[in-house]
C-alpha cells in the first residue's frame, strides 16, 4: 500500500502545479494519473494563457484590475469577484516562473514574451508559444516534477475516494497495467482530473476528458457547482470537432457565411470575431439555423473560418499546429482554402465546488483546474483564462493542502475504513466484470452524447431539457444492466470506458437538472424561453449534491466586490 501526505489525482497542468507546490512546502507527494502526465489533455491547449504583462505596445496600459474586469464581464457577472482578483493578480508571477523554468514562449522583437489579442479582452494579454502553448507548459511542469523527484503512479485510475465522517483519507485506484485494485492512504487529496467534455458527442476534448473525476468527488459528498454552464467553442473543424484556436481570430482570421458575409458585423459590431465565445458560438449557430451556413450530410451545419489573408509566412510561424490539423483531418491547406467549422462543446465551467483556497466541503479534499469550480469563469470563460486557472489554483491547492496536513495532530480514522473501502470497490469491479447484463455500454454512451448535443446545447428550452432529463435517468437504469467487461482486469479498456461512463451519467444528471432549473439566459446558458439575464433571481451559483434520489439543487449568491452587473455589450 502506498502512503503519502498529499496525493494529487491528475497529471495535467493543475495537478503538476499542485504537486510542485505541495512538495516545495515540505510534503511527501504522489501524483496518480490514469494517463502518463505528458499525455494529459492540457497538452492540447493551443492559443495561450492570460497575464497582464503589458509587453505588447497596444497593451501598455494593461493591469491585473483590467484583466479582472474583463473576466467578470465575460463571465456574465456570475464569477466570484474576489477569486477573480486573486487569479489576475497572481498571473504575471506564474508566467515569469514558467519562463524561468524554461517554457519556450513566443517572443516579440525586443525579446520579451509576446502577447496576442484574445476574445473578450480589452488588451492583447494572451501569452503564447505559437499555437502549442499547452504542450510547452505541460512539458515545462513535467520537467520540474522530474527535477523535484516527485513520485508518479502512471496509468492508475482512481475509482473511489475514501471518506469517513466527512474526512477524506485516500483513494482506491485501479492499477491499469496489473489490473489490481490498490489503496493509497493520504492526509490530503487534490482532485485535478480535468474537464468532462466527453459527456457530449461534438466536443473538442480528448476521449479521456470525462466526468469521472467530478463524479468521484460528488459520490464522496462534495457538491458540484454551476454544471449547467458549458462552453461551446465557436470554431471546431467539422467531423472530428478538433479545435481551431481562438488565436486564428486573434491573429486576424474572419468568420464568413455562405453568402461571403462577415456576419459578426451584425452581432458584435465593435469586437467582431473577437467577441466572447458564447456570443460568437450563438452567432454561428443562428447563421446555420437561418440557412446562411453550409451543410454536410454527416457533420451538419457549418460556416467558414478564413485565415488565407494572413499569408503563408504568418500562418506557418504563428499557427503551424492549426495548419497540420487541417492537413491531417480535412485534407486542406488553410493557406489556400477556408476552414469548415462549427461550434462544439469545449470547456466545463462548472465543477467540484471549491472556495478560493481550493478546498471542498469534504475535509482533506481539494480540487483545482477544469474539474473544479471556484468560480472564476462564471457563466462563460474567456479564452486563455483556464490555463491560468490551472496554474493559480493548482498552486493554491498544493499550498492549502500542505497547510492542512501540517496542522493535523493525529490520524483520526481506523484502518478498517481503508479495508472496507477496498472491499466495496472489489465488489463493484467484480460485478462490472461478471454480471449477466446485455446492454451495450457504448450504445448508452452514444445516446448520452446525442441527448446532450441535441437537447442541452447552445440554445435550450424547457421541453427539450425535460426530455433530456428523462433520457439520462433511463440511461442510468440501463447502466445497471450492461454487458460485462470481461473478467481479466489487466489493461481492460472496455472496463475503463465503462467506469468513465458511470461517472458521465451522474454528472450529466446534475448538468441537465441545473440547466432546467435556471430560468434565465446568462453567458453560455442560453434559453429560448427565458431570453433575458435575471439578476434579481439568478445571480447565484447552482450547488448540486448527491442523494439517494439523485441530484438535489440549492443555491449560493455570487460574490460581488466592486463590479456591479451591467448589460454585456461588445
Amino acid at each position: 500500500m502506498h502512503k503519502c501526505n498529499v496525493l494529487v489525482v491528475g497529471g495535467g497542468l493543475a495537478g503538476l502545479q499542485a504537486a510542485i507546490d505541495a512538495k516545495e512546502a515540505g510534503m511527501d507527494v504522489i501524483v496518480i494519473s490514469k494517463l502518463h502526465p505528458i499525455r494529459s489533455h492540457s497538452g492540447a491547449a493551443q492559443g495561450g494563457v492570460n497575464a497582464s504583462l503589458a509587453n505588447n505596445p497596444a497593451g501598455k496600459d494593461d493591469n491585473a484590475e483590467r484583466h479582472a474586469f474583463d473576466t467578470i464581464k465575460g463571465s456574465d457577472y456570475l464569477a466570484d469577484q474576489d477569486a477573480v482578483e486573486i487569479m489576475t493578480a497572481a498571473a504575471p508571477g506564474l508566467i515569469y516562473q514558467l519562463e524561468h523554468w524554461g517554457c519556450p514562449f513566443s517572443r516579440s522583437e525586443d525579446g520579451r514574451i509576446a502577447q496576442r489579442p484574445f476574445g473578450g479582452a480589452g488588451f492583447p494579454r494572451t501569452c503564447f508559444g505559437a499555437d502549442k502553448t499547452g504542450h510547452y507548459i505541460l512539458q515545462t511542469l513535467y520537467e520540474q516534477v522530474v527535477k523535484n523527484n516527485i513520485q508518479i503512479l502512471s496509468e492508475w485510475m482512481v475509482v473511489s475516494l475514501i471518506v469517513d465522517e466527512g474526512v477524506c483519507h485516500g483513494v482506491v485506484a485501479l492499477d491499469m497495467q496489473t489490473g489490481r485494485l490498490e489503496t493509497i492512504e493520504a492526509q490530503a487529496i487534490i482532485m485535478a482530473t480535468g474537464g468532462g467534455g466527453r459527456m457530449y458527442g461534438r466536443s473538442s476534448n480528448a476521449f479521456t476528458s470525462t466526468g469521472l473525476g467530478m463524479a468521484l468527488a460528488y459520490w464522496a459528498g462534495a457538491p458540484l457547482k454551476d454544471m449547467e454552464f458549458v462552453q461551446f467553442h465557436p470554431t471546431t473543424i467539422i467531423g472530428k470537432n478538433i479545435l481551431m484556436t481562438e488565436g486564428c481570430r486573434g491573429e486576424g482570421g474572419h468568420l464568413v457565411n455562405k453568402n461571403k458575409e462577415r456576419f459578426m458585423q451584425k452581432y458584435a459590431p465593435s469586437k467582431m470575431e473577437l467577441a466572447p465565445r458564447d456570443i460568437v458560438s450563438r452567432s454561428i449557430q443562428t447563421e446555420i439555423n437561418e440557412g446562411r451556413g453550409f451543410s454536410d450530410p454527416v457533420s451538419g451545419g457549418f460556416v467558414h473560418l478564413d485565415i488565407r489573408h494572413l499569408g503563408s509566412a504568418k500562418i506557418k510561424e504563428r499557427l503551424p499546429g492549426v495548419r497540420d490539423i487541417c492537413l491531417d483531418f480535412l485534407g486542406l491547406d488553410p493557406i489556400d482554402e477556408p476552414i469548415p467549422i462549427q461550434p462544439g462543446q469545449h470547456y466545463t465551467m462548472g465543477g467540484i465546488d471549491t472556495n478560493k483556497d481550493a478546498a471542498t466541503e469534504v475535509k482533506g479534499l481539494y480540487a483545482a483546474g477544469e474539474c473544479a469550480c471556484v468560480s472564476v469563469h462564471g457563466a462563460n470563460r474567456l479564452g486563455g483564462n483556464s490555463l491560468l486557472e490551472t496554474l493559480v489554483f493548482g498552486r493554491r491547492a498544493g499550498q492549502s493542502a500542505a497547510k492542512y496536513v501540517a496542522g493535523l495532530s493525529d490520524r483520526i480514522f481506523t484502518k478498517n475504513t481503508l479495508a472496507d473501502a477496498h472491499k466495496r470497490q472489489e465488489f463493484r469491479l467484480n460485478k462490472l466484470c461478471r454480471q449477466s447484463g446485455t446492454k451495450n455500454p457504448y450504445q448508452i454512451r452514444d445516446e448520452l452524447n446525442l441527448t446532450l448535443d441535441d437537447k442541452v446545447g447552445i440554445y435550450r428550452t424547457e421541453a427539450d431539457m425535460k426530455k433530456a432529463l428523462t433520457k439520462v435517468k433511463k440511461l442510468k437504469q440501463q447502466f445497471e444492466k450492461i454487458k460485462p467487461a470481461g473478467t481479466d482486469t489487466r489493461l481492460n479498456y472496455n472496463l475503463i470506458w465503462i467506469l468513465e461512463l458511470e461517472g458521465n451519467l451522474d454528472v450529466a444528471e446534475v448538468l441537465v437538472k441545473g440547466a432546467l432549473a435556471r430560468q434565465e439566459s446568462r453567458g453560455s446558458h442560453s434559453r429560448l424561453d427565458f431570453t433575458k439575464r435575471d439578476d434579481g433571481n439568478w445571480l447565484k451559483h447552482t450547488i448540486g449534491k448527491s442523494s439517494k434520489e439523485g441530484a438535489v439543487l440549492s443555491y449560493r449568491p455570487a460574490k460581488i466586490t466592486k463590479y456591479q452587473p451591467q448589460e454585456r455589450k461588445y
Partner: protein
Amino acid sequence: MATFHIFRFDPTKDKTIRFDRFEVPDKKGLTVLDGLYYILENLDGSLAFRSSCRAGVCGSCAMHINGQYRLSCTTSVKPLGKNVTIRPLAHLPVLKDLVVDLTNFFRHYEKIKPYLITNDQPPKKEFIQQPAQRKKIESLIDCILCGACYGSCPVAAGEPNYLGPHALLKAARFIFDSRDTNDRERINLINHNLGVFRCHTIFNCQQVCPKKIDPSEAIARMKMKTVWSKLRGFFGS
C-alpha cells in the same frame, strides 16, 4: 471494408504472438484509431491500445502501421489500401497487444537532466530571448514523446541503454536554449558511447517523426559541439 491485421500478445497468458483479423466498415475520413475503436466497441472488447487526444498532440497512439511508425489518430485508412497491419512500438516490452512498457524510454529521458538549469539569478521579469535565439530551439521543443523515433531506431534495437533519439533531442532542446547555462555538464551527460556517439546517423527517426522534427540533425549539431568543447578543453581556453 478495410481489413485490420492486429498484433495480439498477452505475456501473462500467451506463449506466442498472433495476428487477429477484423473487418472495419469504411467511413469518410476513417483513421486507424477510429478503426481500433470500432473493433474494441463492436468486435473484440479485449483489444488493448492507448489513445487520448485523437488529434496528434498527446503522443499516446504511436504504433507500427503498414511498415512505418506513426500516430494511429492522424493516419487515414484510405491511402493505406484495403489491408492495415498494426504492430506495437518496437524495442520495448509488450504489456498487452499494442500497449508497450515505456519505463525504459522515460528513464533515458530522465538521465539527461530534462529541465532548464541556469546559474544566473533569474530576473524579476522574463529572461530576454531574441526571436533569433528562440528560433534555434524551435522544432526541438515540439517533441510529444510518442516513441515513434525510438521504435524505428536500429541502434536502440541493439542497445537498450542507448539514450535514444527522444532523450538526445531533449538534451539538444536545453543545450541550444540561450537561457540554459549548463553546457559543460550537459555535454558530459551525452558525450559517451551510449549517447550522441552511438548514433550512426541512419535517419530513421527523421523519417518517422509525426511532428516533422529531425533528431538526427540535432544529434549532429551536438556532436560538433562536444568536439569543439573537447578541443577548447585541450587548448585550455
